[in-house]
């Protein structure tokens, strides 16, 4: 099993190609790999429950983390996040990146 870490920095309402990352993460997960999507910068705008995004990723069993500083910068509180998305520090991303057999992709 390979671990995949996808880092989404883009706002889904600005960049339609965030859909590509979502599709790729789900496809990789369906092949039996461990997949994490780390939302950062404008990527955290998708984490709001009111945005109604990322449900497919959560249902597929992808681990969803949202950067705490990016959330604070945008005034998004933890209780506004969709179920299945966890607020996280950047150190969690670093720890995920240095695990053996891990592939990382920034978008």
């Amino acid at each position, binding site marked *: 099993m390979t671990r995949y870490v996808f880092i989404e920095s883009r706002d889904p309402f600005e960049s339609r190609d965030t859909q590509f990352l979502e599709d790729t993460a789900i496809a990789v997960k369906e092949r039996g790999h461990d997949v994490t999507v780390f939302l950062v910068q404008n990527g955290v705008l998708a984490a709001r429950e009111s945005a109604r995004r990322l449900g497919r990723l959560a249902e597929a069993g992808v681990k969803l983390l949202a950067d705490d500083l990016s959330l604070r910068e945008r005034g998004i509180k933890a209780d506004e996040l969709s179920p299945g998305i966890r607020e996280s520090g950047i150190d969690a991303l670093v720890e995920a990146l240095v695990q053996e057999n891990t592939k*990382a992709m920034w978008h």
Partner: protein
Amino acid sequence: MINRTLTLALMDPPYESANSTTALRIISAALEKGIDVNVFAYEGAVCLPLKDQAPHANPVKGTTVEQEEHPTTKSFVSSLLAIGNLTWVNCGLCVDERGATNVVDGVKRGSPADFFKMASESTNTLVIPTK
């Protein structure tokens, strides 16, 4: 204890993208965890450690340099290098194109061959491209 190394390739110039801030945060967090970090600065990212950067006042708000506390990326890079276990290589061709030779102490000059070597010897590599 296993020695872990993270290599990052950066491309964004300073003060253009939140990517730079996130990259500096990743480097800081990794160093705090005792993880060795390599940075290969490519394209505009070679200007991140430019010594000529200067904090400025804000005439719109009427604040002084001291009140503004304008952060510079050169200060961030210097602080991170002072922690230790960080190797920062600026792409030489990118430096020459931009005349970006006056950089803070500790920044090295190199080529994509250095990036290849760093990536080959690292636990993982993260490329942060421009948008």
